[in-house]
């Protein structure tokens, strides 16, 4: 079947199998592999995207369900060649090691700061508790969130 999506402001079409997830279609059919697949079960947050402005795990959404909707992925955060402040903060603070979790964290953090520009420590921890990072122990990710919130 065919689906039509607006991804990062661009209208895109893809022919998909009924069972394909939004994540699979982004990565394998639309040439947008920035969203990562680390569990396909909604447990790790690596595939976080904004669907009509709401943070979702793209692995839990069928591509067909997203037909006609608007998406923002990690590839769509930088504007006019300028990194999104959250992206800049992650690079600056050492919040990136292997980086596999980074796209998900960046999208989830951008979403958090859009809703709550100056989150408390507990709020940061809770908001990002659905995103796993195996490398950093999170300390520098919290630094990045605070830096981005201050900028």
């Amino acid at each position, binding site marked *: 079947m065919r689906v039509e999506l607006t991804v990062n402001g661009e209208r895109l079409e893809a022919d998909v*199998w009924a*069972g394909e997830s939004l994540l699979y279609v982004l*990565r394998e059919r639309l040439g*947008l*592999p*920035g*969203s*990562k*697949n*680390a*569990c*396909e*079960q909604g*447990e*790790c947050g*690596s595939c976080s995207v904004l669907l009509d402005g709401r943070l979702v795990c793209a692995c839990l959404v069928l591509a067909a369900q997203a037909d006609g909707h608007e998406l923002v*992925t*990690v*590839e769509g*955060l*930088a504007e006019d*060649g*300028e*990194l999104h402040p959250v*992206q*800049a903060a*992650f*690079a*600056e603070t*050492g919040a*990136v*090691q*292997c*980086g*596999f*979790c*980074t*796209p998900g964290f*960046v999208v989830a953090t951008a979403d958090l700061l859009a809703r709550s520009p100056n989150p408390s420590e*507990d709020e*940061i*921890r*809770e908001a*990002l*508790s*659905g*995103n*796993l*990072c*195996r*490398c*950093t*122990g*999170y*300390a*520098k*990710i*919290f630094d990045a969130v605070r830096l981005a919130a201050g900028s």
Partner: protein
Amino acid sequence: MSATARTLELGRVGESVKRIDAIPKVTGEFAYSSDLFAAGMLWGHTLRSSHAHALVSEVDISEAVGMPGVHAVLTHSDVPGAKTYGLEFPDQPVLAIDRVRYFGEPVAIVAAEHPEQARRAAERIRVAYEPLEPVVDPEQATEREPIHEGRPTAGHGFRDDERPNVVRTIVIRHGDPDAEADVTVSGVYELGIQDQAFLGPESGLAIPDAEGGVDVYVATQWLHIDRDQVAPCLGLEPKQVRIHLAGVGGAFGGREDLSMQIHAAMLALHTDRPVKMVYNREESFVGHIHRHPAKIWMEHRANRDGKLVNVRARILLDGGAYASSSAAVTANASAFACGPYAVENALVECTCVYTNNPPCGAMRGFGAVQSCFAHEAQMDKLAAELGIDPVELRLRNALAPGDTLPTGQRITGSFPAAEVIRRAAALPVPEPEELPRDALRLPGGSGNTTRGEGVRRGVGFAVGFKNVCYSEGFDDSTAARVRLTASDEELAAEVHCAAAEVGQGVVNVILQTARTELDLDDVVLGAATTSSVGSAGSASASRMTWMAAGAVRLAARAANEELARRGGNLAPGETIDVERIYHHRPTTPLDPETGQVTGDGAHVAYICAAMRVVAEVDVELGLTRVVWIGTAQDVGKAVNPQAVYGQIEGGIAQGLGLALMEEIQTRDGLITNASFTDYLVPTTLDMPPVDAELVEEPEPDAPYGVKGVGEPPTVVSTAAVVSALRDATGRELTRVPVSPDEIVGL
């Protein structure tokens, strides 16, 4: 991408610099091994054993080959060359031959147009299994029928141990192993199976060349040893197999062994099409080796003044179905069993056995994690028995340069164990938090349904150590190549080193070293591949910073000398291209009878860390919360301090996970929790703030005095977290992960 975002960080050794791959990683552009694409690419899939132990009488692929989209279905008979491979011993079939020895062992592989077609075709392969009784209790393994014919690991200078299913036995006798002392404490400790749980699943792309060879793009820890295992199985010359590093989503030891490399290459060569393979999370859990579960019996004898007199330890490691790096893990568990303490007498016996449980091998800390959990529990017990402060007891016994280890090796390099203990102990512990408080700050977080009536607080302490670089005579050298060119009167350099960037930041180490030595800003790093430079050895054993810095420094200095010979400059178009191989100082095997060093000593150098932990438990609900962790770590010299702190924080998280939640569960050898729903790793709600201090005492043998930093935090944090839980509960807590049952009902 803005020009400013791409500004190079031109740091030299010792400066905190941003990772060179940070920008592509935050924008989503960085290509991980699972992101690769090639025109005409097929998808590979692996059919895995549903039994832990069974004979395989037939693999019938007839139905699968006719399925839509399917291009190849291959079994062991299609393996073109050697049928088995292995990191140290070739005991592992590329595809099961007549027997499967663990749950999830690869049996057949499929290539199809769509990954779902490949999966469905694999389901139609009929495998005739004759189930065998699995060997699942490591304590019984040496009494059971051998799982492997012959003795795959016998010889190699190892101690003779004729019992069935022994991977390796080590006995270390030091001084008088019967020496008595004023007091004795003993305990039995157990650790469950931990998984590396790197986020980026096993994946890669194999592309056939037109001449019968193949290029494999893969996430790995050591490109050249992959090549040296892949090529013989394909029946190819090493140069016909080029392994290229694709983006690596974490490793932690779990990518030392091969996963999909041979399979994807076989399918690509068979179909003459590029083949991509990506494991899903469940397959990743069964598709790589884990940290060895262990059972450890320990007895410490000490005098009233706290001086250790004799340590006696027996360690049993479950290696699972294949050898992987078990022999070296056995050596580490033994060599570090007594902890970073001077003790004149010791008897350490360590055996690793084959079973039909999930195969185990390398994971961050490599044998030292298991031993540290036991020896630190013992030190706390001894402190209580003697009425000496636990930190003071450790200080009184701390190993120092010039001291001799139980293996007979004298510490000749830097070893600031007493200093890390003092510094960690001096870190201010946060004040207890008042109750009531937000549930998020209670043990169990929002899962806590009380007002905190059952909350108790404890403070724990632990110290641990291990070696840097490979040991026991293994020459894990590292090659680097420096190419100098000139354009517009300006010199520029390109550096090649096959060191695997697995997230630890070795790419920056390489560039910082090259810029320091060449005194140039314009230095770029070539892609890591087997086709442009010699082996870098493995990104493991906390060795890559030391070895990459050593190799790049050698090559850069050779380039500088050549440049000086040519008058200090190059004409446009002129190049200098030098490759150099760096070796650490030689080591020699342990004596198989006594476990004592022969010749140069078994290890290159030692690294240590001390840690203080504050934890709370809710004794009504069985919940825990680690409140704060303070640590001081021996790092030699921090090349990129920001990255060093990152390694410490991340390493601590993994040890905390083993202490509190991480365990691969099995029933009759079958893994029952192969998902992030059931195998829990620490989240943002589990990790406390970490105060880390770097202790920089340069290692005399090493470039710039560096050591390694990746492993000590993981070695120590499991022990330190449980020490805090013991303080809070007064219970022995002899097994990790600590289960809620052991905390409730005080």
